[in-house]
């Protein structure tokens, strides 16, 4: 045991002291925040403006077609497909002569092709303009129409989960987000740290230090020391990220104007209602309060607890397999690629299932994928985000955890047997068939 501890220490400290670890740990959160900010900025600033000339022979929808900040419609005279660009328009829309209850083609011609979203929104605009026009023709006044349109914004759905007597606000969007994010994070870390274990084993083998060490410790101790040491690196990284994110958000909150901070805290005290209407909360304070309120609807202790469990379990499950592959590789890293395939396939497949499960947590495939240890770390996280026991019952969670533990004990045993033969074997190309022979033959 003492020797495993020495190996763990070396694996851990040689990686944590590495510059790459520090850069990755501190730049990753900044990179993620930067990416979000950049994509938000691009989605605001990158919108192109379309100036569309409409040829409307009947003048049927001239009054009902509404402009937005992205699209403006105009109805110039003497325009056709040959001269619309010269007159400063980006597109030309040609309406057919309108007949009631009949489908017709509306032709849009552009110099620059138009995105699908924009086409859809133009098509919606034309249809609602026709609808409005027909309603007005039937005798409904414009003012009444406007008030009906605004009524479509009145209802706001708030979902609650029933838990015995009490009920708790639930938020499917948040659950989906958490499920997706934690599934993705586990998927990425399985790959990153699994590959790190594999490279470490390959390094020891190709460096030939494996033989020196194996004359001092058992192969299994060397393998486990490496797996545990690198796993500890992964946990350290998560911990640092959590600390970094919490401190970054609180720093960001500190930059808010003091009156907004004050309003947010009074909103928190009064559960979302401004006390006595004394003071009207500003729009941004309400937004911040709503975000905080939504985040608080999730069962964070459960999610974080499960995340740590599934990260460790999934990591041990896959890292052992990666170590086995690493031990069979000779000088040629190409061999690793083909041997890794049977490990990466279930990982990628599980990720695809996770994407489905984030939207639909209770299908049979979601159930089975969250029990089978190949996929359970990712899929179960996506389901747990929807709540225990409302989406996942306690026995399902327990069964999933037990099969994962049994799974990683099995893969560790299997890999230990492959590893002890593979690590000292040079010059022989190893296939999965040979690896199974090593694992299951008696000796």
């Amino acid at each position, binding site marked *: 045991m003492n020797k495993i501890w*020495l190996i763990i220490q070396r694996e851990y400290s*040689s990686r944590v002291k590495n510059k790459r670890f520090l850069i990755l740990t501190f730049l990753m959160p900044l990179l993620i925040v930067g990416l979000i900010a950049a994509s938000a900025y691009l989605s605001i600033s990158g919108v192109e403006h379309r100036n569309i000339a409409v040829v409307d022979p009947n003048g049927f929808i001239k009054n009902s077609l509404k402009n937005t900040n992205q699209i403006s419609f105009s109805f110039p005279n003497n325009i056709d497909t040959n001269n619309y660009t010269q007159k400063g328009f980006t597109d030309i829309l040609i309406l057919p002569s309108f007949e009631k209850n009949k489908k017709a083609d509306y032709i849009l011609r552009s110099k620059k092709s138009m995105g699908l979203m924009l086409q859809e929104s133009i098509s919606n605009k034309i249809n609602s303009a026709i609808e409005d026009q027909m309603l007005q023709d039937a005798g409904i006044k414009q003012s009444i129409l406007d008030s009906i349109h605004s009524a479509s914004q009145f209802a706001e759905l708030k979902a609650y989960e029933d838990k015995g007597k009490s009920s708790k606000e639930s938020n499917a969007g948040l659950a989906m987000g958490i499920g997706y994010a934690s599934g993705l994070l586990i998927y990425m870390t399985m790959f990153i740290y699994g590959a790190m274990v594999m490279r470490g084993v390959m*390094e020891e083998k190709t460096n*030939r*230090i494996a033989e*020196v060490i194996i004359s*001092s410790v058992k192969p299994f101790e060397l393998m486990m020391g490496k797996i545990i040491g690198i796993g500890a690196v992964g946990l350290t990284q998560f911990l640092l990220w959590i600390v970094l994110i919490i401190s970054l958000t609180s720093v960001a909150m500190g930059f808010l104007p003091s009156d907004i901070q004050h309003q947010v805290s009074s909103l928190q005290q009064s559960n979302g209602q401004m006390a006595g209407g004394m003071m009207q909360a500003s729009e941004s304070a309400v937004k911040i309060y709503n975000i905080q309120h939504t985040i608080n609807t999730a069962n964070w202790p459960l999610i974080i607890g499960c995340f740590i469990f599934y990260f460790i379990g999934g990591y041990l499950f896959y890292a052992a397999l990666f170590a086995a592959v690493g031990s069979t590789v000779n000088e040629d890293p190409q061999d690793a690629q083909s041997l890794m395939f049977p490990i990466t396939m279930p990982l990628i497949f599980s990720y695809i299932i996770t994407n489905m499960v984030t939207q639909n947590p209770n299908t049979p495939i979601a159930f089975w994928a969250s029990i089978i240890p190949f996929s359970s770390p990712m899929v179960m996280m996506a389901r747990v985000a929807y709540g225990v026991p409302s989406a996942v019952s306690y026995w399902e969670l327990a069964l999933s955890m037990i099969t994962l533990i049994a799974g990683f004990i099995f893969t560790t045993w299997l890999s230990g047997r492959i590893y002890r033969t593979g690590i000292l074997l*040079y010059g022989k190309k190893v296939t999965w068939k040979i690896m199974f022979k090593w694992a299951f033959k008696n000796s």
Partner: protein
Amino acid sequence: MDALLSLSNLKKYYATQKAVDDISFDIKRGSIFGLLGPNGAGKTTLLRMITGIFYPDGGSIILDGQPFNPIEDIQKIGYMPEERGLYKKMKIGEQALYLAQLKGLSKAEATEKIKYWFKKFEMETWWNKKVEDLSKGMSQKLQFVITVLHEPKLIILDEPFSGLDPLNANLIKEEIYNLAKKGATIIFSTHRMEQVEEICDHIVLMNLGKKILDGSVTDIKQQFKENSFVIQTDQSVGIKENAIFNTMSHIENKIIVKINPGYQSNDVLKYLLQENINIVSYNELLPSLNDIFIHLVENTHATARAFQNVQN
């Protein structure tokens, strides 16, 4: 005989080869022992069983009077494999410390011993360097230090001089003698016969997984001598055919002869004196280990060891 290590009927069979096939020998305490054999003879497999990396399929290993226990006896053995390996990115001092601690030394003990050896081999400035900064010979020295650091009773060196310049090779050679004098037993595995002749007291020659020769270097040479003599004359002379000996080679003043059965070395001298040839020197030609090695291993197809089916 006080044997530190004794192997009896040791076997290790792979799926397609009998790598080590029923090998027995003893190694005297404090001796320098040579384990010889062509490539693929099973030397490395045998050494790996002695170091506890492999479990034998049959037979027994007695180390220091007790059945060998791979876990307990790690500290008694220092093994320098043929393919050297160190962590390239790790600092040399930390690396030596780590490997010594894996052998069971405490941190303080290990530090003290590393300092002693580094000073002895003038490696003190290396502590904070990385292995990738070292030349091949330098990392060889480091590997040797790591092997003997924990003062093992049995030191196993697989080709310890490959890649070393004569100066550093001598340094290591001296150290091997020193360690043997202090009581350590050294197993020395190599193909370099001239080194074996120079260093080893006792050798075992392996071929195709079996022991084919076992004895002290002088005994073996006596055993394989072919009654050949080297004669130096003061000038180039002609030698007629005669019944006493055959001339094997005759280059200027140097004649190598092989005495025919039934005659003694003095018969040659008598004949030469009768012929009135001036002799400057007259020596028995003992075969070199190299010759013996080639003689024994040739024609066994050891250069391309065939795969065979092994029935366990």
